């Protein structure tokens, strides 16, 4: 793909970025351990010269942090990024300055990313001054060219950002990023603050500029239709990890990862068939990156979580049981409020023996929507009986021995195939488990 050599322009390898909570001196004195927030947890991808790689995911999945860290706007916790053959995190002095010239960024919010006290002429000129490029006249000429190229008029150079609309400000941000003739631009949600008609103008502009200056883009967005429209390849992120990466058409037409499928299902289409479209909505919220689930991070919401081999259960029922287990493991059921007011109150917190059957029935009714086959019903009742005695560990253990999924034991790898997917249903991992078709 690359014209100069086979090497990708940007190579990201196992990049990690943790933010630390409880990390002040006071916390240390009191002996609190710092808690890592795993914003980006081991992502790897390549970006080839002249292509657009899309990074898509929900808010909080770490896509913006990835963009900032690979530009070294944030120091990484671990991992490597090579840009044009140079290790970005080892650069210093002139080399770092040269990297800063080659790699630029356009930010999401055009209202806060321009200095309100600088005219737009000054704003676009500033990179040239910082990097000491050209004489005054050359700079002036360059700024005029840039402003015209992004679709504004040179007469407006003496105006201040507040005099412009959102779309025009985003154009100014793009002109500023182009000032140093970079090779690579990170576009961090460049159109999410704009109206659709203006968004379309900006996307077309970015497209034209890429052709004209042979730019390489990393486009970060939560909007799948924008990604589809602009990108050559796409990486889907969930909770700090890349779950699927592939060519844009392949990924949108045949999404392999259940999360990608759910994401695509969720987007409402602007067409009259939308109301009759079958869609499956993903339940629940994204878990906290402070304590991400073991194994596959999507397993807590995944409708296709893999049951143990010999288990004969409907997929839907298994999903319910896994959600119940999840809550017991997180101790997210308040036992006091089970049943009617004070029905099961006891002094030491556990439920008196004679109330246990009623307690179990009450919990079951509240937490499980589907009826269970007898064998599984018995197992769940045993576990809930432990719960009645406040033995959370034992209850969780009982369910774990019975229902542990490969998805929680092993973290799936992206794999080496042409269209990598981090899911046990695909690639090498699926050979070790049941045939995927046997239960879907």
């Amino acid at each position: 793909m690359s014209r100069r050599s086979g090497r990708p322009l940007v190579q990201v390898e196992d990049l990690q970025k943790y933010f630390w909570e409880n990390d002040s001196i006071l916390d240390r004195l009191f002996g609190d351990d710092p808690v890592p927030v795993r914003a980006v947890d081991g992502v790897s991808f390549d970006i080839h010269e002249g292509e657009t790689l899309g990074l898509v995911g929900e808010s909080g999945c770490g896509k913006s942090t990835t963009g900032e860290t690979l530009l070294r706007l944030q120091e990484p916790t671990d991992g490597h990024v090579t840009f044009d053959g140079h290790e970005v995190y080892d650069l210093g002095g002139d080399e770092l300055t040269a990297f800063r010239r080659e790699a630029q960024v356009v930010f999401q919010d055009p209202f806060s990313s321009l200095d309100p006290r600088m005219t737009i002429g000054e704003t676009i000129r500033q990179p040239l001054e910082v990097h000491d490029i050209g004489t005054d006249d050359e700079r002036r000429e360059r700024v005029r060219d840039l402003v015209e190229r992004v679709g504004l008029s040179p007469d407006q150079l003496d105006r201040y950002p507040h005099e412009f609309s959102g779309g025009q400000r985003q154009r100014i941000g793009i002109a500023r990023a182009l000032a140093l003739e970079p090779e690579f631009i990170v576009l961090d949600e460049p159109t999410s603050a704009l109206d659709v008609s203006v968004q379309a103008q900006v996307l077309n502009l970015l497209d034209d500029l890429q052709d004209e200056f042979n730019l390489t883009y990393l486009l970060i967005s939560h909007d799948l239709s924008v990604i589809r429209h602009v990108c050559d390849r796409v990486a889907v992120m969930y909770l700090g990890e890349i779950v699927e990466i592939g060519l844009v058409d392949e990924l949108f037409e045949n999404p392999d990862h259940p999360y990608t499928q759910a994401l695509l299902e969720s987007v409402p289409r602007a067409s009259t068939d939308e109301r009759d479209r079958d869609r499956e909505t993903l339940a629940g919220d994204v878990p906290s990156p402070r304590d991400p689930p073991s194994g596959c991070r999507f397993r807590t919401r995944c409708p296709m979580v893999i049951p143990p081999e010999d288990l004969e259960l409907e997929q839907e029922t298994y999903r319910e049981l896994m959600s119940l287990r999840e809550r017991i493991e997180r101790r997210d059921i308040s036992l006091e409020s089970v049943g009617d007011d004070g029905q099961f109150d006891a002094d030491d917190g556990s439920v008196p023996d004679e109330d246990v059957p009623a307690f179990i029935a009450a919990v079951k009714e509240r937490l499980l929507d589907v009826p269970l086959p007898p064998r599984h019903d018995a197992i769940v009742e045993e576990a809930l009986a432990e719960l009645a005695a406040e033995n959370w560990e034992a209850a969780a253990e009982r369910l774990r021995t019975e229902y542990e999924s490969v998805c929680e034991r092993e973290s799936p790898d992206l794999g080496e195939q042409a269209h990598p997917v981090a899911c046990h249903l695909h690639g090498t991992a699926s050979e070790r488990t049941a045939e995927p078709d046997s239960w879907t």
Partner: protein
Amino acid sequence: MTEDILRVHDLSTRYFTQDGQVNAVSNLDLRIERGEVFGIVGESGSGKSVTARSIMDLIEPPGEITGGEIKYRNGEFAETVADEHPNAVNGEFVNLLELPPNVRQSLRGTSFSMIFQDPESSFNPTLTVGEQLAEAVEVQRRASARPRSTRARTQSEEYSLGNFLLSTVLPSQKYITEESRERAIELLELVGIPDPVERADEYPHEYSGGMLQRAMIAQALAGEPDVLVADEPTTALDVTIQAQVLDLLDELQEETGMTILLITHNLGVIARMCDRVGVMYAGEIVERGSLEDVFDEQVHPYTQGLLGSVPDLEGATRRLQPIPGNVPSLLDHEMDDRCYFADRCPKAMEDCLEHPPEFEVPGSDDHEVRCVLAEMEYAESRAVPDDHFSETSRTAADKHADPDRTEDDVQPQRAEQPVDDSGGDRL
């Protein structure tokens, strides 16, 4: 055919700012049937939120409803107000703009409810979600005990001054009765919040965005409203959560049969939810009709432009066809008496220099459009010369015009020419 629940006729809402009069909504007609989902779609600054707020009577100075009628159909309500305000009543319809503020206020919550865009900033962070819901329930209970006024009762023991002062020191749950708390929990359960009993005692920051939006919907449902006004209900949410919230609204609407006025800029959400749609531009509805009329048979070039701007999730990659230029200024002295879209319109003709009335589009009962193209074909010979607008109307369009987001609509002159080049070349 179901009956109309709301008829808005000739509504105008103006903002009187330092820069002059802003015509946020001009001569707007709207008809909403009982039990339907009516969608208003438009870009920021097109007046869609102001329309919703006018219906809710939430317009604040410097804004003012300067004319028109908002007629609400409710036989019972018409009877109760008939004696005191005979002017307002016409059969089963009551013109809300003829009523004094306290009567209109009594309708809020019981007849009209609203959910807002940003759930994180719409809740009070210092009270638990349960309390805030119970508060809404309490207001409705008091309102239904004495219709037509919701002024807080201080006579009863529960709401005495002493009790109020005590509640500032003690945990404020005291101020809310047990019944309303239970109702709040019921409401939380209705909108699908797991473990409503515990969740009721949590503060807004402990909720995720999607759950807070659910809680806000619960709050709006406290008074079992006839009409629910949802102003960008899913704009702040992720797509998977947006899908959950839209499913919820759909279910609730089926269960309760309420009418929803849905305001959004997202055409996908409109397609997902609405029976009928109005497209707003510069304070007017420029095209209206059933979902099929507007999405498949649209006449107005603005509607076409809006649909052409949306990148397609399924189709092959093609170049987007954006609308050149920006949303126009709504300042009164800058608005010429012409079609407000003419300066951005690829099919502007000499006939567009007069403000068009609403034309009925043949082929459908309810399809109306504010564009001369409904009556005539586009003719090259009658086209307006390209430089027509850049010389006349654009020169002064340099000040902000949007009452809600002041910075959003600034438009320096002559910006449009280069924009046309980059975007409109394949139109």
